[in-house]
């Protein structure tokens, strides 16, 4: 599903050159639930961003469903992100000025889905994460766990094949973290391919495969 070959990512400023990823080779199969672990600054989020087509590697190739994406233009990459990938972030990234249901609808806006079906799909997604009673609430009125469940609803509203989660339980207590993990496992059992960056060993153990990074290099 996602194939990374000889991925290298270098951040350059006028005076410093930082090697964030070095010779990463990965193949994420359809339906897999993979976790990525490693110390802070080892390149986990960079790797996830490259998988999510939010960033380009300095070297190497990224293939999605066997298609190399290096030559894709902005419009095609945006289309792929919208159709195939759902993102979950540690800090939720909800828009505070929009209600829960309006936040969840956002990916569908970029598919030109009409208003009514858009709201129906958003409500269905919120029901899946157990937040159907909070659709008119605003993010500021929600707890951390509820915010992350809204973010998950937003990630799954467009039925993407891949979910990329960047420390989804990082800002939550263990009970909330477990709840979120249960939801992710449920989504995986329904067929979603999930790649999750985490610092939590116990969460990582609940996934099919663990990838460890150290200083930008894959060590496991």
């Amino acid at each position, binding site marked *: 599903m996602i194939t990374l070959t000889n991925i290298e990512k270098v951040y350059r400023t006028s005076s410093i050159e930082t090697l964030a990823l070095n010779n990463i080779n990965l193949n994420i199969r359809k339906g897999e639930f993979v976790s990525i672990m490693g110390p802070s600054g080892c390149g986990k989020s960079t790797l996830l961003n490259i998988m999510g087509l939010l*960033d380009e590697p300095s070297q190497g190739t990224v293939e999605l469903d066997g298609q190399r994406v290096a030559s894709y233009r902005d419009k095609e990459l945006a289309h792929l992100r919208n159709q195939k990938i759902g993102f979950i*972030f540690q800090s939720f990234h909800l828009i505070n*000025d929009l209600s829960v249901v309006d936040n969840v609808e956002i990916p569908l*806006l970029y*598919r030109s889905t009409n208003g009514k079906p858009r709201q129906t799909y958003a409500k269905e997604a919120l029901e899946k994460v157990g937040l159907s009673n909070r659709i008119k609430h605003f993010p500021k009125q929600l707890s951390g766990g509820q915010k992350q469940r809204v973010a998950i609803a937003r990630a799954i509203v467009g039925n993407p094949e891949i979910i990329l989660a960047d420390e989804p339980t990082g800002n939550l207590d263990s009970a909330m973290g477990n709840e979120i993990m249960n939801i992710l496992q449920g989504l995986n059992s329904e067929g979603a391919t999930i790649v999750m960056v985490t610092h939590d060993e116990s969460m990582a153990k609940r996934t099919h495969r663990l990838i460890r990074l150290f200083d930008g290099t894959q060590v496991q």
Partner: protein
Amino acid sequence: MIRHLFKLIWNKKKAHILLIVEIWASFMVLFGLATLLVVNVGNYREPLGFSYENVWAISLSNNQDTTEVAQKLQQIVQRLKAYSEVESVSRMGGNFPFSATQMNEGIGYNKQHILADHYVTDEDFAKTLAIAVVSGKWYQSADSVGKYRPIVINQKAREDLFGGQNALGKVISDKYKVVGTIANFKAKGEFMANKPAYFELVGANDAWNSTMLIKVKPGTDAVFEAKVVKDVARMVKGWSVEVDYLTDSRKTQHNLVLVPIIIAAIISGFLLINVALGLFGVLNLSIARRRGEIGLRRALGATGNGISRQFIGEIWVLATFGLLIGLLFAAQFPLLNVFNMEAGVYVTAIVVSVLVIYGIVTLCALFPSRQAAYIQPAVALHEE
């Protein structure tokens, strides 16, 4: 997406209230200026109705001399006609074309009463100013023998008094009889509104209307002017003689209209530039604050151009809120017939103002929104 943008702005209305007020105020200022411009452009496009090239106005004042003034004025007319440089001479009151003097009078036909500009002139007035008679004829001295005094009215007076009917032969205010009609007569220049006017024949013994309009041959210069002044002064000792070229008087009249408009436009321009700079700054700040949201939207499927369009769309929505409030005020002008102007003038001014406001906000949003489009999603998300 439009609904989404409206929701986004509506939910942040408290934060945007000052911007909305600013846009509303700009619209009102623009509406005032646009109304002024539309009125004057509309007036300018209406034909003047006469020719002023090579026409001079010689204003005579008898001062202390009160003996045989009418005869002396007749003699001056005859003397002026005798010059080979003069094509035509006409006598009239002090409200000659482009002068600062104005004279009007209420006239009526049946139950229709109007206020019309009143000009007292002789039979050569139409010839001197190359005025085309639309129907009937320009009056002659011989027409003054009847019970009613002959008058010529302009098209506007005809419309206001008689509607679509023929005006010839009709008696107005029980003392005037219409012998002819002309098209427009905009004595104060192109920017003057086309007002009703009527022309009355100057009496043979009239001693009051002492301005001579003379149409000179092309190329006649100041040497001739000096000669005329000298000759007239010799004929009527103690009188003052003043010569105005109608081309110069026209420029003065235009300045009276244009200078206030230019001042208003400059002040409005500065106001709008301030508003534009304010909007530009607010948008720049807003984009800097919303980098995380931009990154998120890119992650969820927005293109760079899509982000750019979103920010332009947001400012359009903001402008729409401001304009809707402004329209509530502006719509009262045509509805209440303020300043007795046609509704079309206000509607045109509203349309122009709305377009200018949308143009300004779009210009202000273009650069910041392009900047937003170039924000790298991974970097923006990481910063958050």
